[in-house]
Each structure stands twice: as structure tokens, then as C-alpha cells.
């Protein structure tokens, strides 16, 4: 075969050969094909829109009392509620035990849930990734301190730790900021950053022995460049999965704390607070409790579907 013919043949093969895709493009492809994950994503997007446009969408002020003293059943034609005599078409999902519009409260609650889901996890990501990176790459005293903190934090379930923080600091001026939201962010971040740092540290420990890192070091790349250009992108997979599962667990922490009465304070509406307040009248009128409970279940499932989808997309071997 002449040289020209060989070149022509090579060009032909190039055309035929599959278009190159990066790891992340591959992952995106697998994620989009996962129906449960896409469904979860749609639910989360809707909840996000509700949260952002709550002031526009919600028909009423979530803290204002309308049907003084009396609670109203929802107006939906639902067999469960058939036979309830209080029906008022102005309040689509009825009113709660002290006469506030349930629909408006549910919509405003999605705001708190979204904020509580995303803000602490963003803090956890920033602190966890930087500390984990430093501890893994440099070792030494940063690593020692991180491991000792880990020992203490890992001795307990997160929820117990959060509860003790809330039980004691809620009456502190810090606990009062934004109805307890600031303490919620701080508490969840304090409890969770350690896990993230451990995860990143483990990744870095194995990655820094790889040939490409050695090559980078050999040509004199500074540590900051090695960390940001070589270690971070390669350690990102498991971190993204941890973030995806961190968001619903932060939301759940808020829900649980508010449910037992130590989280976000009334009159701020959150699903947990609504359950806590409505529980007193649960046996006579279950709807003020059933609806926020359904919201929590739906959002938790949506996030789990997305988290599972991301995990399976990034590393199909992790699939169970």
C-alpha cells in the first residue's frame, strides 16, 4: 500500500470511529437515560420553582389566620374527606388548626426545605473538599487533627449531635437568627463536613501516587496546580455522589428536628413544623399533617432517585 493510500485509509477509519466522549459526557448520557432519575429531577425542579416563586404562587400569607378558631377541610372531592361538613372553596387544601391556609404554608415550606438542603451542603462541600485535599496531600498535623475530630464525630449518629446542638444553642442569640435557620445551616455543616473531608482525603491519598501526579511533580508543577488541575477533577466523582445524597439528608434533619419541636420555630412554615403543630389535632382532622408528610416523602424520594441515578452514571460498578 502506498503512503497516500494508507493516509486515505486512516482518514476513512477516523470518520467511522466513534466520536470521543469524556467521562463526564458518558455519565451524563447514562443519567439522562435513567427514567427514575429524570422523574426525580422533574419533581425537584417543580419544588424549586415553587420555592423561588412562593410569594407569587401562594394564594395567601402563610402566617395569617383566616378561619378564626375553626379548621376547614380541603375542598378537593376526595373520598377520604367525604362527610366533613366544613368546606370552603377559598382554601383549596383547607386551613390548619388555627385557621391558616394550608396550601400557602406548604408552598412557603418548600422554600425552607430547599434552602436548608442546599446551603449547608454548599458549606460542607467547600470546607470538606479543602480540608480533605490538604490533609490527603500534605498529611502532617492537618491530617492528625482531622482524624481526631473524625473519631469523635463518627461516634454518634448525626441526628443526636444535631439535637444536642439545638437543645442547647437554640436560646442563644445565634439560635435566634432568622428563626433558627442560621443555626440549622451551621449545625448541619458542622456535623457533615467531616465525612466529606474524609472522603476527599481517601481519594487524594490514592490519587497522589498515580503516575500523572508524579509526572506533574517532576516537571515542577506547584502543589496548588497539582491539587486543582490533577487531584480535584479526578476525586470529584464520589464527591458529587456524596453531595447528591447530602441534600436530602439535610432536609430530613430539618424535618425531624422541627417535628420534635426543636428545629425551625413557628410561625415560620416548614413541613416539619406543620406536622409538629398539626399533630395535636391529628385524630380529629388529619389533613394538616398528612399533606406536609406527603410533601416530605415525595421530595425525599425524588432526591434519592436523582442520587442513585448520579451514582450509577458516574460509576456503574457501584450499582447495587
Amino acid at each position, binding site marked *: 500500500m502506498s503512503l497516500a493510500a494508507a493516509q486515505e485509509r486512516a482518514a476513512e477509519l477516523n470518520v467511522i470511529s466513534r466520536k470521543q466522549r469524556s467521562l463526564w459526557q458518558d455519565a451524563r448520557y447514562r443519567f439522562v437515560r435513567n427514567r427514575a432519575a429524570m422523574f426525580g429531577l422533574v419533581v425537584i425542579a417543580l419544588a424549586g420553582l415553587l420555592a423561588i416563586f412562593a410569594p407569587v404562587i401562594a394564594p395567601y400569607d402563610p402566617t395569617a389566620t383566616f378561619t378564626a378558631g375553626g379548621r376547614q377541610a380541603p375542598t378537593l372531592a376526595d373520598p377520604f374527606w367525604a362527610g366533613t361538613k366544613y368546606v370552603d372553596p377559598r382554601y383549596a387544601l383547607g386551613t390548619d388548626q388555627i385557621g391558616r391556609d394550608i396550601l400557602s404554608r406548604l408552598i412557603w415550606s418548600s422554600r425552607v426545605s430547599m434552602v436548608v438542603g442546599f446551603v449547608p451542603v454548599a458549606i460542607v462541600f467547600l470546607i470538606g473538599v479543602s480540608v480533605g485535599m490538604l490533609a490527603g496531600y500534605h498529611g502532617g498535623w492537618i491530617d492528625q487533627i482531622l482524624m481526631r475530630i473524625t473519631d469523635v464525630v463518627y461516634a454518634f449518629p448525626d441526628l443526636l449531635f444535631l439535637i444536642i446542638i439545638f437543645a*442547647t444553642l437554640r436560646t442563644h442569640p445565634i439560635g435566634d437568627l432568622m428563626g433558627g435557620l442560621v443555626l440549622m445551616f451551621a449545625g448541619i455543616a458542622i456535623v457533615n463536613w467531616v465525612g466529606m473531608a474524609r472522603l476527599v482525603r481517601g481519594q487524594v491519598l490514592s490519587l497522589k501516587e498515580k503516575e500523572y501526579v508524579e509526572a506533574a511533580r517532576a516537571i515542577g508543577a506547584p502543589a496548588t496546580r497539582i491539587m486543582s488541575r490533577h487531584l480535584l477533577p479526578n476525586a470529584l466523582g464520589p464527591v458529587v455522589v456524596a453531595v447528591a445524597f447530602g441534600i436530602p439528608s439535610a432536609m430530613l434533619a430539618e424535618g425531624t428536628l422541627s417535628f*420534635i419541636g426543636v428545629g425551625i420555630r413557628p410561625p415560620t412554615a416548614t413541613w416539619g413544623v406543620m406536622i409538629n403543630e398539626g399533630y395535636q389535632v391529628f385524630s380529629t382532622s388529619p389533613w394538616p399533617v398528612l399533606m406536609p408528610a406527603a410533601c416530605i416523602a415525595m421530595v425525599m424520594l425524588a432526591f434519592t432517585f436523582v442520587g442513585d441515578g448520579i451514582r450509577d452514571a458516574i460509576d456503574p460498578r457501584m450499582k447495587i
Partner: protein
Amino acid sequence: MLTYVVRRVLLLFPTLFVVAVIVFALAHAAPGSPFDPNPDRPLPPQTVERLNRYYGVDRPLYEQFAMYMGNLVRLDLGRSLVQDRTVAQIIGQQFPVSAQLGLQALFLALAIALPLGVISALRQNSAIDHGGILLATLGTTVPSFVVAIFAIYLFGLNLGLVPLVGWGTPKHMILPTAILALGATAFLTRITRASMLEAIRQDYVRTARSKGLSEQTIVVWHVLRNAMIPVATIIGPATAALVTGSFIIEWFFAIPGIGREFVLSINRRDYPLIMGVYLLYALIIAVANLVVDIVYGLIDPRIRVSK
């Protein structure tokens, strides 16, 4: 092995000490004294002073801490600020209820999860497998109190099969036990299935099969034995899940256990009780983790050698 066990048991103390320090520090970071004038319950200043002196609240912090730790060593957890009982009495009277609830839930979880996980793995992608995965996903995703709300709405309010709240008769126990077990069941099913799938693909299983052993012998003697090792390690996290799950369920169903007392004490800011119950929980979880490590060493010779 014995030195290992002894060392691990001794290591419990520093862990619990750190926990006590953290809990103590947080409890005292709360502003004011528990006997500050309360508009709902005004106390004369002399009484407040006497109360402060009685409970040692007026002393410097390090002295209070030394006092607390000294009492702790003698298993004296102090008196409740709200009830006329000592913390030790409260725990002694109410912990058995929680323990019963927790153990019932643990046995129920094991009874469902182990067979379900094993069958799921042996019949991968069958209907049972899909059902098992669905249960595992729902059980780990939907919070226990949300499940409790729907369960009580359906079985208690609508069908009237079980009482709404309370404790005592078997009828009272069905729902709380089942719901508390749900999380642990989901968790255990997942682990059992994954661990079985891993064991099935090992070389020694292929060897056993090529020797012509019966499928039953292979599953029982080669797969199950090895697959149960990771399952044993889950006792630690499962205990933690049962403890934290228990106070939510006890609160929801008004069960007179220590978990409900814990939530009440938090809402009433009854610090001695909060600290006492928290330390109890810490001890339970630390002991569970210890047991796991020891059991792990006993059943898997490789661990023992490396230590």
C-alpha cells in the same frame, strides 16, 4: 485476641469522656441559668439563689465539670430539674420500655431482611428481588415519622385496627415496632443482598460447583457463611439507627420510653436529663461498635492476624 478485647474496652473510656466534655460544654453554652426568672413561673430571688447553690450552678465552670465527672464515676447522673426523680431513676424506669421496643424491632428486621436479602441475591432480577430493592429504597428514603403518620392514618384512624397512641398491650406494639424496624430492615436487606452477590462470584464457589457439590451445600456452606461476615458489621450502625429511630417513634406514639423522655427533656431544657440520656445513647452505640469489632475478629481470622 484477649489483649485486643481488653484494649478496645479500655478505649471506651476516652470516647465517653470526650462525649461528656462536649455535652457539658454545650449545655453550659446556653445562656443564663435554668433558674432565671421565668415570667410564667416567678420565683423569689432567695429561692433562685438557693436553687443555684444547691445545684452548684453558681460555682466556676471547671469546678462544676469536676463535680459532674466525679458524680458520673459513681454513676450519679444528678437530679432532673423538672421532675422529682433522679436521672438514674428515670433511666431505670423508662429504659426497659425502649429496650423492649428496640429489640423487638431488631428481631423483626433480621427475620425479614436476612431471608429477603438472600433470596433476592439468589434469584437476581426476579420479582422478589425487585420487591426487595423497592422495600430497601423506600425504607431508607421515607423518614420513619412520615411512614408513622400514614400508617396510623390508615390502620388506626380509618380502619380502627390498632390504637392511635400508647403502650402496653400487643396491639399497641405492632405499629411502632414495625415502623421502627423498617429502616433497619431496608438497610440489612441491602447489605445482605450485596454481600451475597459478592460471595456468589468468588472462585471458591466456582470450585465447589465444579466439584459437583449440590446447589444447597454450596449456598449454605460456601456462600452464606462468607456472606454473613459483612452483615455482622452492620449491628453497630443498626443499633445507632434503632436508638435515633426509637426516640422519634416513641415521641410520635407517646410510648413511655427513654426516647420520649429525651425529647421532652430537650423541650423543657432539663439539662441533667439531656446529658444523662445522651451519655446513655453514646454508651449503647460505643458498646455496639465494640461488639461488632470483636465479633468481626472472631468470625474472620484475617482481621485477627492483621491486628
